[in-house]
C-alpha cells in the first residue's frame, strides 16, 4: 500500500519536530484548551489580540500526534499578525478542506500553505487531529473556556 506521502509530507514532519510558536504566553489576552478525547491530544492555545482585532501574537503548547501538533504550528504561522476576521475565514476553509467539502485545487481560497493538510480528508479518523487547534483558536477568540472536537 502506498499513499503515506499524502499525509505525512515533509512540511508536516518538520513542524511536528520543530513546532513554531510552541510556548506558554504570559501576556495572552485570550486562552483556550483543546482536547481530543479519542487520542488524548491536549493543547493550550494563547492569543494576544489588539483592540482593532489583529492577532498580534499567538502560541500553543501541550502534546499530541504529529498531525495535531504540526497543524497547530502551521496555524499559528498562518494567522500571526493577521486580522481576526481572516483567521475566522481560514478556520471555515480549513474545516471544509479536511472534511472534503472544499477542494483547494478547484476552489479559490486563502489557505496557502495550509493546503498541505488536504490529504487528511482521506483519513477520517485523523480529521479531528488536524482541526483541534483551529477549534481552540475559535474558542479563544470567542473567549470561551474549553474547545472540544466532540
Amino acid at each position, binding site marked *: *500500500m502506498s499513499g503515506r506521502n499524502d499525509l*505525512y509530507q515533509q512540511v508536516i514532519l518538520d513542524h511536528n519536530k520543530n513546532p513554531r510558536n510552541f510556548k506558554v504566553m504570559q501576556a495572552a489576552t485570550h486562552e483556550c484548551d483543546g482536547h481530543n478525547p479519542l*487520542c*488524548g491530544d*491536549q493543547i493550550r492555545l494563547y492569543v494576544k489580540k489588539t483592540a482593532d482585532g489583529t492577532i498580534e501574537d499567538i502560541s500553543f503548547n501541550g*502534546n499530541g500526534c504529529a498531525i495535531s501538533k504540526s497543524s497547530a504550528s502551521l496555524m499559528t504561522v498562518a494567522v500571526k499578525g493577521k486580522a481576526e476576521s481572516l483567521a475566522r475565514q481560514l478556520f471555515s476553509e480549513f474545516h471544509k478542506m479536511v472534511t472534503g467539502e472544499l477542494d483547494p485545487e478547484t476552489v479559490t481560497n486563502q489557505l496557502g500553505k495550509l493546503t498541505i493538510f488536504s490529504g487528511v480528508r482521506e483519513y477520517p479518523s*485523523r480529521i479531528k487531529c488536524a482541526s483541534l487547534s483551529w477549534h481552540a483558536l475559535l474558542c479563544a477568540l470567542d473567549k470561551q473556556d474549553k474547545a472540544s472536537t466532540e
Partner: protein
Amino acid sequence: MSLPTLPLDIKRDFPLLSNPKLASTFHYLDNAATTHKPEMVTRAMDDFYRFGYGTVRRGVYKLSEGATANYEGTRKKIANLIGAESSEEIVYTSGSTQSINLVAYTYGRKFIGKGDEIILSQIEHHANIVPWQMVAEEVGAKILVIPCNDRGELDMEAYAKLLSRKTKLVGVNHISNALGTLNPIQKIAAMAHTVGAVILVDGAQSVAHCHVNVKELGADFFVFSGHKIFGPTGIGALWGRMELLDRMPPYQRGGDMIQTVTFEKSTFQSPPHRFEAGTPPIAEVVGLSSALDYVTGIGLDRISEHEQLLLNYATKKLSDIKGLTIIGQAKEKASILSFVLEGIHPHDIGTVLDQEGVAIRAGHHCAQPTMQRFNVPATARISLGPYNDYSDIDAAEKAIRKTLEVFG
C-alpha cells in the same frame, strides 16, 4: 534459527483474510477489539434468515419451534464452553458491557449499600468501571482500586489490605485488554470470598484465547462478547451462579420475561428468561452458536498454544527495535502487545502501519486509568488471533521500522 511450527493454519476459513487480493498485503492485528468471522458463521446466519427464520419462545408452529431449540441449545454450548453448571445460568446480553451493566443495575443496586465497598483493578476496561460508579453514586458506596506494578501485574498484597467486611463486590478482568496481563483470578476470587464478597470476572479478552472454567476460577459472575469470539456483534452472555441470579430483580421489563401480567401487578420468570425482555437477537445467537462450534472444533488449548508462540515471537522482534517500549510485561500474559515509540504518538504509528497494510489499535483502549498508571496518553497495540501467523508479525515489525524512518 528455525521457528517452531504453529499449530494452526486457518486463514482460509476467513473470507476477508484469505481474499487473494488482500492476503499478502493485509495483516489484521486488532483481535482484542473484534475478531473476523469464519465463513461458517455468516453462512449459518444467512441460512437461518433464508430458510429457518422464526421467532423464539412464542410460536406454536415448526419454524418457531426449530428456532427456539437452536436458541436454547446455544445456552448449553455456552455453559459447556465456560464450565457452567447449567444452561439456566446463561443470560443472553448484547455483550460484555451490557452484561456488566445488568449485574450493576440488578445485583449492585440491591445488594450493595451505603458505606459498602466495590473493589476494581487499576487495569480495568471502562466497561468494568463506569457501571460501578453509577452504583456507588446511587447507593453511597465507595470504589477502591487494586494497584498494579510496573509490569502490569496486580499487587496482591495491596489487594489483601483493601478487602474487608465492607467489600461487597470485586470486579476484575481475566485478561487486561490494554496490557495483556492474565490475572490470577483463582486467588483473587478465593480472597474475595473470605470476606463474603462476590466476584465478577470480565472475560471479554479471555474466552476466545484460553481455556475458561468458571467453577475452577471461583467466579460468581463471568461476562463475554460474541464478536470477540468469531461470532456476530450484538450478542454476548452473562453467566452467574444460579443462587445469585435467582435473587436478582429483572433488568429490563417487557414481553417474555414475565409469568403473569395484570394492570395491578406482574410476576416474573425464573433466570435466565427474567433478564431477557423482548424479542432477542435470534440470528445473532445462531451465529454465536456456529462460532462456538468453530472454536471448540479447533480447541482452545491449541488456540492458546498458537497465540503464545506468536506472542513470544512478536515480543522478541519488537524488543529488538530501538526506541520501542513494551507497556505491560507481566509474567503471565495473553496475546496482547502494547507499545510506545519514543517521540512518536501512537496514532501516527497506527496510521503509518495502516498505510503499510497492518491494522492495529492506537489509543487508550477504553482503559484511561491504565494509561495514567503508565504515564502515557495512549499506546499502539498488537493483539493476536488464531488466524495470525509469523508473516503478520514480520509485516508489523517492518511497518514499525518504517514509522521510525518517517519520523526519524
